[in-house]
């Protein structure tokens, strides 16, 4: 763990289909002391988000089955049992229509995966959890 703080109380959900990135994000966030769940497709991601209770949900836009925007629409129509504090979209394109659609559907922000090194990714996550 790189910081001796209260990260262990923060719960994060990573919904990402790219196996390597998902495992990397989970490993790095766990090393930071966060409690991390991960899902590899839209359906499983939706079930976890619908259950709720996360301090941060990192939601990939492009997912097999149900994509990130579809999940956001369903969550907006039928809110989670326990609210999720922050939902942040993960995308690869900085000019992506999904971002503006996501904002309209209530996301708190977005991360451009292709712009970030692992260290920068963790830094951004910390800011969303402050």
């Amino acid at each position, binding site marked *: 763990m790189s910081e001796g703080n209260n990260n262990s109380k923060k719960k994060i959900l990573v919904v990402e289909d790219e196996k390597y990135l998902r495992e990397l994000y989970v490993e790095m966030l766990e090393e930071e002391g966060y409690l991390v769940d991960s899902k590899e497709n839209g359906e499983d991601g939706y079930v976890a988000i619908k259950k709720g209770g996360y301090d941060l949900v990192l939601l990939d836009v492009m997912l097999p089955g149900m994509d990130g925007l579809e999940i956001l629409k369903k969550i907006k129509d039928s809110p989670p049992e326990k609210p999720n504090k922050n939902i942040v979209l993960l995308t690869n394109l900085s000019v992506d229509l999904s971002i503006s659609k996501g904002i309209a559907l209530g996301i708190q922000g977005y991360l451009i*995966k*292709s712009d970030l090194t692992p260290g920068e990714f963790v830094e951004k996550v910390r800011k969303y959890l402050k």
Partner: protein
Amino acid sequence: MSDILVDNHDFLGKLSVIKNCLSLVLEKEKDHHKKELLEMAAGTNQQLIDHVKTA
């Protein structure tokens, strides 16, 4: 020569994986020569990312 059709989201996803791998290896590499080679690979990968983004 023929064009290769790729989905830019998917292609950027793969390049992001390479970027992350290289970044992690670079962070730990102490050997100066190997570090230079890795930096070259990371720089070229970044050029590809920038190229796809502006395509």
